[in-house]
């Protein structure tokens, strides 16, 4: 089974990362996510529950990085 981290971007939905949740190094997954958040401000949401998550675990199969929104 493959899990993926995706985001909505100017190109539509874009897969950032794919991995096997059974064998992947989750520290590495979270490091990539943290780097992406630092760069873009996007934060991870579990696409099964619709809830924001602090850290990705092996239970999440699809995580959406949600970009910041501004008002105006």
């Amino acid at each position, binding site marked *: 089974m493959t899990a993926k981290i995706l985001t*909505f971007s100017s190109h539509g939905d874009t897969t950032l990362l*794919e991995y096997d949740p059974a064998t992947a190094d989750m520290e590495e997954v979270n490091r990539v996510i943290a780097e992406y958040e630092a*760069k*873009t401000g996007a934060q991870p949401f579990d696409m099964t529950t619709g809830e924001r998550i602090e850290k990705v675990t092996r239970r999440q199969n699809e995580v959406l990085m949600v970009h*910041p929104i501004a008002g*105006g």
Partner: protein
Amino acid sequence: MVPLALSLIPFLAVTLRRFVFTGMGREWPVGEIDAPRPRQNGPLEQGLYIIDPTGLTLVAGELENRADGADPVDRKYRAQRYLCRIVALTGATQIGGGYALDVDTTRFKVRDGYVRRVQDVTNPKCGYEETCFYPAHEEMPKAEQIATALLQLKNNPALFDGWVAQNHVAFKADGQVFTRAQ
């Protein structure tokens, strides 16, 4: 002779019509809708590499600035599909050209580029506030913009206060201000 010729006209007309339209049948677009095509990453796929032994497949290069080979129709279709999923996840409902999202007694109405808040939907005299909104990726498909706003408001309805109070300031989903310098 003349009556015989006249009686043959309808027969010939039907035969001719069948002959002509059978030939055209394959080319007539009536009622045909292109089935959704599988995603074609094109150059994106070429940019994939596998970091072993962690089992990660990471997209190489700039994560933000990659060109996705998918055509605009496919992209729009997928954006709409994600919006449908997120509408279901958040319990929002489609109303007219927008989506209504209830969080406790607060109702948000999200549509293309605008979000309206009625703080107490049980009070018919309760007024509303409205603001524009835009995501960090301004070229994001409209459906995905709406999906982003629905997800964020469902998880953190107080974000709306920030959007109203501080124009053109980007807020992360957790409510923190985001600046490019971070």
